């Protein structure tokens, strides 16, 4: 186990305080991984170079109106990198590489999501890192991993989802797959990056040893299709089959009754329109037993059609889904989606509103009660809502550690205060293009940091 450097001041809700992470990641999956380490209390240093900017800093879709566009102004970067420190450094400059090596020698975790073997090419592969810091935890997050014949294949979230089998699980039968309407494997790949780092830290506590964890974003997706995998590897079932995937249902009308890998076979089990008829005026309802169906009939007001004995068994409801769903939707169309969910749930029927992003921020009483969003002041975005953790530790809500870094915002403090670099060396680094590209205009806060080093 590592020496305890906390002097008994450890907090249950900030367990990683005292852990330092060198974060070479960019775009979404990697930064999301390191973001959770920061949220748990780690000191995460995001390593960047302005000439090869993190794409999320350039995401023009999330610059609020009235905010000056630029790499420090995007909402998507902000939430994805909350609570980190910003270091700008050119690792392809010998002095930059030396400085990064010094930083790694005093850090616990190195995490990156470049294409495979890029870090080795820079002289920062695991064998090198181990020389700098014998018990370092090194997590690499390439699309196909660091080993295997296609290790050099690249992925973005949607491509990884397609290759893993996740995309094919989602959609209506007889149509092309709907897939996932976002990079699920960037969100989830990020979770796994954090999980791998934490798991390896736990192993280090047990043994004093570090290690290299070689994560593959694409393979992560395959591990989430376990039932489908076993149905193929054991039963030989083809997934290109009639009625599959069955949309929001568990079995498509007219198709043979077999499991679709979501959970139990049930009917009703679908999305229905609600009052208003707007783009997201939908609800979802599922009855997992005959009793739940009987309760739903009462909630529907006991219409004659629903009491027909052909609906009284699961088999009958599956065989007559179209008629049943039409009857249910006639009723759901008369109620607003939140009211509908409340009415159903009060009676014990499983129903929820389909919620948009706006709904979750503005209209979701549960997220509001639990304090899902915390406003933190951001230098460009003002008071900004950041997403907290979906768990409480020891009763405490876990909010982000702070705003994201402006690019290179903490370079002088990391190099000076942490690594003991003199002001003269710092200034020389700026002059030689080690800490900021010579041809890129400097932001006022960078100029100011240089000014302070001059004093």
């Amino acid at each position, binding site marked *: 186990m590592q020496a305890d450097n906390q002097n008994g001041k*450890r907090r*249950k809700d900030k367990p990683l305080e005292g852990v330092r992470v060198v974060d070479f990641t960019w775009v979404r999956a990697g930064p999301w991984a390191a973001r959770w380490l920061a949220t748990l209390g780690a000191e995460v240093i995001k390593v960047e170079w302005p000439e090869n900017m993190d794409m999320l800093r350039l995401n023009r879709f999330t610059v609020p109106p009235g905010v000056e566009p630029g790499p420090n102004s995007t909402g*998507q970067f902000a939430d994805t990198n909350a609570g980190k420190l910003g270091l700008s450094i050119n690792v392809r400059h010998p002095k930059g590489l030396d400085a990064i090596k010094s930083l790694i020698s005093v850090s616990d975790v190195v995490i990156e999501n470049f294409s495979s073997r890029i870090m080795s090419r820079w002289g920062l592969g695991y064998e090198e890192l181990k020389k700098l810091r014998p018990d370092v935890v090194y997590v690499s997050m390439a*699309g*196909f991993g660091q080993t*295997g014949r296609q290790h050099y294949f690249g992925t973005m979230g*949607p491509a990884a989802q*397609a290759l893993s089998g996740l995309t*094919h*699980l*989602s959609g209506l039968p007889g*149509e092309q797959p*709907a*897939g996932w309407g976002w*990079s*699920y494997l960037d*969100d989830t790949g990020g*979770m796994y990056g954090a*999980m791998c780092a*934490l798991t*390896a830290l*736990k*192993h280090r506590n*047990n043994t004093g040893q570090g290690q290299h*964890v070689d994560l593959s974003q694409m*393979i992560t997706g*395959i591990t*989430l299709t376990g039932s489908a*995998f*076993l149905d193929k*590897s054991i*039963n030989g079932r083809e*997934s290109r089959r009639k009625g599959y995937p069955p949309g929001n249902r568990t079995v498509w009308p007219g198709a043979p009754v077999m*499991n*679709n*890998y*979501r959970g*139990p076979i*049930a009917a009703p089990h679908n*999305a229905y329109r609600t009052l208003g008829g707007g783009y997201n005026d*939908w609800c*979802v309802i*599922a009855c*997992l037993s005959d009793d739940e169906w009987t309760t739903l009939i009462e909630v529907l007001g006991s219409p004659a059609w629903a009491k027909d004995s052909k609906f009284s068994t699961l088999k009958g409801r599956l065989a007559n889904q179209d008629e049943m769903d039409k009857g249910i939707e006639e009723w759901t169309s008369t109620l607003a989606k939140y009211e509908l*969910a409340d009415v159903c749930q009060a009676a014990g029927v*499983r129903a*929820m*509103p*389909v*919620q*948009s*992003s706006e*709904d*979750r921020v503005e209209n979701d009483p549960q*997220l509001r009660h*639990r304090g899902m969003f915390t406003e933190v002041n951001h230098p460009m975005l003002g008071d900004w809502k950041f997403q907290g*953790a*979906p*768990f409480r*530790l020891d009763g405490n809500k876990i909010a982000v550690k702070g705003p994201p870094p402006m690019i290179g915002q903490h370079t002088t403090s990391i190099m000076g205060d942490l690594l003991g670099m003199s002001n003269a060396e710092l200034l020389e680094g700026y002059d030689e293009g080690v800490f900021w590209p010579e041809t890129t205009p400097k932001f006022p806060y960078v100029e100011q940091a240089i000014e302070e080093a001059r004093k």
Partner: protein
Amino acid sequence: MTSTNTENNLPGPLAGVRVLELTGEHAQFCGKLMADLGADVIKIEPPGGQETRKVGPFLKDEEHLERSLYFWHYNTSKRGLTLDITLPEGQEVFKKLAATATLILESFPAGYLPSIGLGYEALSENNPGLIMCSVTPFGQDGPWRDYKTTDLLHLGAGGQMASSGYDVEDIPDAPPIAPGGGNAWHIASHYAYIGIMGALYHRDFTGEGQYIDVSVHEACSLTTEGAIAIYLSTGDVVRRHTGRHASVDMSPGIQHATNDGGFINTTRSGSNLTPARIKVLASWMDEHGLADDLLDDKYQDLKVVEEAGQHFADVLKNFFANMPLVEAYEGGQELNFPWGAVRTMEEIMGDPHLEDREFFVSVEHPELGQEFTYPGGAAIYNASPWRITRRAPLIGEHNEEILGGELGISKTGLEALQKTGAI
């Protein structure tokens, strides 16, 4: 293929962590993640077996509590114990077990365990290092706390459905689509795992345990990538598009049909194409006589490229329509385009890259005298391997080993427990 007992006998990274798992669909995946990484996970089921054993698919489609492939997948490397914790005798045994545990992972309705005297306060009294993690639909408090859910309901409320579906041009009346595979529970299990690892890290230094309250709804709500940031930045709500990111704008299609009935998913056209990359792509297309005008010098200007997004998509669509899926996907990857074939299990089985990484794991089922192929781990840990140590437990398979062998309950004691129906 690697076999259950790897030659590599190093312990997994979570060796020494003992988990009591009392959870079905909500968090059994979290238990599997821990068990395959070396934790001693004891799955506690009610006598007769857990509800999740009734979920298919089943071995050879024969419905049976010991033949659920769903249960098999989610419960690898765990040991199995049956115990009725509603009976006083069962509760006594449970308290003894809890005194030996590092973690209790549970997903009963909020407030249930405290109501029968088995809450965190009671169980940690004699085991201050105990961590308890509750995974419930909405957490332990709030107006929706007692609402009942399913995977579908979470994907509806969590925002997954609002982002997934079809372009109106493709299917005019398509509903929002809940992606398949039971991923609400996966998402919750991932966050539960992170919370637990944080608590374990704290415990390693202080000896202190703690209580963790995980909300499936909050976990799902966190998992729609940019949808929330777009809303917060602009007030706009994203619209659903076939096979690609939901967005505010009408983005060009990226999922294209190939001439053998497959689909290839490309990265959004124009978002990552430099003039040099366009030359590479157009030259490849030109070899097939399908480059259209993409070799034109005007595309050496990024502004023109950005404005021509739809045209690029159209030319690519026509290109892919003239070749088989494998050629489109691997051809693109060899030229450094991060594209993906839409694969099913048929293509994933036997994938040589996965074989190189020893992804396919053979797991022995001694009760059937057979071995079956399971999916491996997402990551390779070079000092503390991931491994499936055993297939999912049979009902009560380890009752005697755990209660007799480890807790020291005598034979007559076990018989008495059996008589009362506690095990």
